[in-house]
């Protein structure tokens, strides 16, 4: 089974729904390697974001994801690893 892909566009949409956008931050800019904290998303915003990712993609992320994934790129890689693992197991 082919794995679903979690893209930057998906992440941006979920971030906006989950926690909105900090004033002065442009999610359409170069954000892949920006610190999520610097984009205005503190731990609770990321908890809400990962909760929404889990629901939408029907995966379970370890609680440490919130603390480990410091950038959008790291979060995308982590989620896509899970999606690949789910597809491989199917």
């Amino acid at each position, binding site marked *: 089974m082919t794995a679903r892909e979690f893209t930057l566009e998906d992440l941006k949409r979920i971030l906006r729904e989950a926690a909105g956008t*900090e*004033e002065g931050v442009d999610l359409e800019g170069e954000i892949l390697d920006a610190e999520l904290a610097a984009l205005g998303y503190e731990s*609770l915003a990321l908890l809400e974001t990962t909760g929404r990712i889990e629901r939408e993609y029907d995966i379970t992320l370890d609680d440490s994801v919130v603390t480990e994934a410091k950038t959008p790129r790291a979060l995308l890689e982590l989620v896509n690893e899970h999606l690949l693992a789910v597809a491989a197991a199917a």
Partner: protein
Amino acid sequence: MSSTSVVVTGLGVTAPNGLGAEEYWAATLEGRSGIGGITAFDPSDYPAKLAGQIDGFVAADHLPSRLLPQTDRMTQLALVAADWALADAGVDPQTLPAYDMGVVTASSSGGFEFGQRELQKLWSLGARHVSAYQSFAWFYAVNTGQISIRHGMRGPSGVLVSDQAGGLDAISVARRQIRKGSRLIVTGGVDASICPWGWVAQLAGERLSTSEDPERAYLPFDADAAGHVPGEGGALLVLEAADAAHERGAEVYGEIAGYAATFDPRPGSGRAPGLRRAIELALADAGSTPGEVDVVFADAAGLPDLDRIEAEAIAAVFGPRGVPVTAPKTMTGRLYSGAAPLDVACALLSLREGVIPPTTGTSPDPGHQLDLVTGSPRETRLRTALVLARGHGGFNSALVVRAAR
């Protein structure tokens, strides 16, 4: 220290009959009510169907998107009221030391609408669907916390929960913090729980009017008084030491001159209710005699027994028909923790303009022996106002405001 004069330099109002202090004040003088049929949800299956609702408030017009998913309506209203109060005071909190500023608000119900939505998700969709922000969005202290974070106010802060009396209790704590050395405290209260969950909680108190006539539903001190109409909103005030306000050239609305709180004896004890003592102690704290009080903003419960207790307390201190009394909350409904701060804002505007806004709808029962201002505003020289607030379960609070010198 304790003699430090503490003054109000900014007002932020979100009321059912006006967004912003000036709009609210204009509506209040005109006798324009914000009470009407509930539109926030379908009330047809509930015995009480009227509320004082704030129409036309769009949080996204005032607040960054970052705050919207994590805030209940009451917090959105409170954040906007705080913004307006600070702007009115001419204060930019970013330029002041963070630990010199604090926030002390009152709360009555917490974020019921937010909480209801998340609880519905919990039992219909499962725990994974509950917002992480439910952890604090419902909480009594959340308005204080969000205002503190938004403006970087890290000094003495807290929340008072004593139903409608809490609005005055919070202002008193804010005054104490100014006297202990804080430079600026944002204080007051904003409540909003016009949602099914909030409604059943309020119905359980058996104090709501079930009248469906907006003109006749909330009639404090009237022989036909039969409960109150709840409303949403309130007011936030900026408090500073008089000297500091004067030094920076701030416009001063008036002084928080006196305050006291008492608790009623247990039901059936035969002892007198505590409201009269609260009034006397607040006047003593202000160094005022009853004769110096120019107007009383009544708690105005709208229930015969509670109205009688309040009227007796006022008559005992000021004499029969001894002082003008008003209840502009007849135009907003009772706003719980937001009610008394809104009355304080209204009292300060009354002092500034030399006019007492009317109590609408009510034809006072002559037995109460109150000089109730009804019909139209009463122009008079005003220097000192007394604001009364009572909370369910026996809380009585009284606060004296005096015109700026």
